[in-house]
């Protein structure tokens, strides 16, 4: 582990386009939600530490409210977080280097969630390949720390948050990532992936709310890829 690159990655969280604000706002909401459904502080922080990807935590909270079975929770979370699979495959080939031990990749992949992933996609090329994995672990550790502190903070201030404030917190993350997605529309391929993804995601919702993200995303991404290839990106 190269500490210098780890720290470099870690302090990306301070940059101007950092997801820190959006991340903090949304995990405050999660912390408050956890408290309202009866988790204690340890369980709340532990949950963010272990899962970290936000939509999965939301599904878990909702399932606990309606008293869904463990198998139901597992399947619902797996479906909504399966997007982490293409995200990992589109990032980790950029991080591989023969000097890094294999197990490190299996630990480092825990940090895959949209916020850290986006920072890494933007900064990856500027980091020497040999140290990219260490840099990534830094980025991930910073984001996870923000998420965990925000969960704890949200848990403690839950009683002071009224409904309007909760709603305000909940919109921050989608708005931030919508901006990031629009910012990523630099080629025909990327623009189509983003536009078709949102349109088809919604259309497929009418067929199946559970599968709409995966089916919509898969169809849109594949279409965008082929149209982009045919038009020379």
């Amino acid at each position, binding site marked *: 582990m190269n500490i210098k690159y780890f720290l470099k990655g870690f302090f990306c969280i301070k940059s*101007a*386009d950092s997801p820190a*604000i*959006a991340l903090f706002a949304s995990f405050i909401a999660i912390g408050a939600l956890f408290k309202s459904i009866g988790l204690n502080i340890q*369980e709340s922080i532990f949950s963010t530490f*272990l*899962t970290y990807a936000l*939509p*999965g935590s*939301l599904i878990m909270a909702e*399932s*606990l409210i309606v*008293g869904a079975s463990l198998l139901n*929770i597992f*399947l619902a979370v*797996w479906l909504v977080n*399966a*997007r*982490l*699979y*293409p*995200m*990992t*495959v*589109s*990032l*980790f080939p950029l991080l*591989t280097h023969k000097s890094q031990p294999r197990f490190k990749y*299996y630990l480092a*992949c825990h940090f895959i969630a949209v916020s850290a992933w986006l920072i890494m996609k933007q900064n990856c090329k500027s980091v020497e390949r040999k140290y990219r994995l260490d840099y990534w672990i830094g980025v991930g550790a910073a984001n996870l720390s923000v998420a965990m502190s925000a969960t704890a903070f949200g848990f403690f201030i839950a009683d002071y948050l009224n409904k*309007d404030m909760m*709603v*305000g*917190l*909940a*919109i*921050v993350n989608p*708005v*931030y*990532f*919508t*901006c990031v997605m*629009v910012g*990523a529309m630099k080629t025909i391929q990327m623009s189509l*992936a*983003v536009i*078709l*993804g*949102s349109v*088809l*995601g*919604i259309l497929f919702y009418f067929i199946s*709310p559970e599968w709409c*993200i995966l089916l*919509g*995303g898969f169809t849109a*991404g594949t279409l*965008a*890829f082929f149209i*982009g290839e045919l038009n020379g990106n």
Partner: protein
Amino acid sequence: MATNIFLAILATSLATYISRFLGVVTSKKIKETSKIFKWFNCLAYSTLSALLARIIIFPAGALAEVDYFIRFIVVFICLIIFLISKKNFVYPTVLSALLLALLSSNL
């Protein structure tokens, strides 16, 4: 509450980690210059967009209590601000919370 919270947390984290783990396994065989890598890149961005669209149009939790029209207006205004502020991320994110809280309490 019927389900044990601790087990629910474990099930959630396991269900999440599986996709990351399989992603690393697949990554081993994929070169960053290949077409497959490009395809996966498209898939990653389109599934994320699908997720975002779903959260904004068919939200769960707190957002579901806000009128669909208000959500749409807030996202739209924030996007415009993002574009005219030369892609500054701080203005639209901070403004989105204030705008939504304001609109939803007054309309």
